[in-house]
């Protein structure tokens, strides 16, 4: 699958979904759209018509507020009908704002409260390792989410148990809910923190598909370290007026803003 086309589709769906559903977090989806597209379009093994296929790679979106991006990827890869996306956050819909598995094939795990996804992924990776399985476990964290102590409990655990089948990708867009990460609660030196906890760390441009594919294709040796990919991203990437603006963590694109955003995405093959 062409990951750049997939990323563009995820972005367009996300703008449409957050507009129609009058919901938040569009910029959080735009930020990670390339990462999700590379995972679903190139890296991960799965079977849309057999969502519980035992050998599938596991994907957990720990930053559950960007659930629209996962629903969009599932629709584009054939897990769910594309028409479902139009119902996002509407009364009676299956698709709620924070990603939920109930009634949605392909959603591995429901999140929404931050700091939950990585311990789950670590448990799955531990089970996979013990059973000598070859599938991998991928978890996307947000940067603001790294304020949660539960992540650091799991970071210790994964390293202690050499869970090299576990890969974390941090969507490091450097803006959290109310202000920048730097102003709110400093993470730097961020990559060094992961290294100090015993992880293999790669820093990449989180919008550069070739770089993402290169680091994600590499499968660490058994009994090696878990991998953290610190993906430097731009919050709101692809819609100029949403980029690096705290406002678009919560604002829903309506009216002229919606039209302008869609036009930009259609005209600009950004990836």
């Amino acid at each position, binding site marked *: 699958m062409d990951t750049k086309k997939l990323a563009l589709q995820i972005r367009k769906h996300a703008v449409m979904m957050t507009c129609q559903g009058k919901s938040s977090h569009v910029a959080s989806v735009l930020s990670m759209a390339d990462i999700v597209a590379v995972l679903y379009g190139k890296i991960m093994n799965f079977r849309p018509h057999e969502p519980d296929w035992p050998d599938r790679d596991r994907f957990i979106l720990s930053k559950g507020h960007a659930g629209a991006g996962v629903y969009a990827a599932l629709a584009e890869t054939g897990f769910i009908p594309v028409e479902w996306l139009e119902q996002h956050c509407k009364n009676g819909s299956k698709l709620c704002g924070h990603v939920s598995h109930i009634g949605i094939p392909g959603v591995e795990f429901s*999140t929404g409260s931050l700091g939950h996804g990585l*311990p789950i992924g670590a*448990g799955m990776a531990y089970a996979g390792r013990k059973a000598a399985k070859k599938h991998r476990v991928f978890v996307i964290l947000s940067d603001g989410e790294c304020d949660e102590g539960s992540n650091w409990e799991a970071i*210790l655990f994964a390293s202690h148990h050499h869970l090299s089948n576990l890969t974390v990708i941090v969507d490091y867009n450097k803006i959290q809910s109310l202000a920048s990460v730097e102003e709110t609660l400093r993470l730097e030196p961020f990559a060094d923190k992961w290294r100090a906890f015993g992880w293999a760390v790669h820093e990449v441009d989180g919008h550069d598909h070739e770089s993402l594919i290169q680091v994600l294709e590499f499968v660490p040796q058994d009994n090696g370290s878990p991998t953290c990919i610190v993906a430097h991203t731009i919050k709101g990437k692809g819609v100029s007026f949403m980029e690096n603006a705290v406002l678009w963590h919560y604002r829903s694109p309506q009216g002229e803003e919606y039209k302008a955003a869609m036009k930009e995405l259609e005209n600009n093959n950004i990836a």
Partner: protein
Amino acid sequence: MRETFIKALTKIARRDRDVMLLTGDLGFGVLTQFAKELPDQYLNIGVAEQNMMGIATGLALEGKKVFAYSIGNFSTLRCLEQIRNDICYHNVSVKIVSIGGGFCYGPLGISHHATEDLAILRSLPHITVLAPGDTYETEKATHAAYEGNGPFYLRLGRGNEPLVHGTRPAFSLGVAIPLTEDRELTLISTGGILANVMRAHEILKDQGTYTSVYSMHTVKPIDTALIVRLAKTARIIFTVEEHTILGGLGGAVAEVLSGCEGFKPQLVRIGLQDQFSSEVGDQDYLRMLYGLSPEAIAACVQASIPQ
């Protein structure tokens, strides 16, 4: 109860290699044999209860049946959101075990007194809440948690609880065990306070006051059929729990009674009032202070009978 639990679980885990025991770095001397004999089924997560419940959920999603063990409030309140969102919402086979229900860890202080756990856990969807009354019930409850689907909460005592049942009682989830014949004054007990309730029953008998006693080992789902029957036949129902009187066994019984048309009996909830158990002393001392000694329970029953 903890020794009984670990013996029963060891037997289960020998037969079923998908059973795993996780601990939050507690269980000194208690879990050692299990860890030695079944190292692939044992995992000390470290002092990290939120992560323990997440790992437990991840393992359960991959087909394991996980017992997650700690003491007091560490396996419940510390990681409550993981229990709610991860374990209960995903309805996975994680059995949460808490050692030291009520005042078991008396002198250690309120951080170690589990006195709100039943109320909080029973409000979560999908979970079954068990508080066995003695070691016989603990053995049966451990098997029930293993065999049952989805999440369980197993609230146990610590050690040296007396056997209350003379022989192994019949045990089914959600069905209270009668220990006496039926009387108009009915004592319903949950958890390890059962021994004191039976002693209160004996004290009252010596005073010429006859009561019946039930062990409500399953707090959720509560034995609705029993309570509906008692709503017609009992004069006073006393609930007894080593726990706040808010929202636990007493609350569960009150909820059922309030739905019974024209119910007759008065309900008296015996337990810790809405307060912290901040006095210092051992379990028996604290039970006495907070109205849960056999004598205090008996006195409460006598005082509740209209003269």
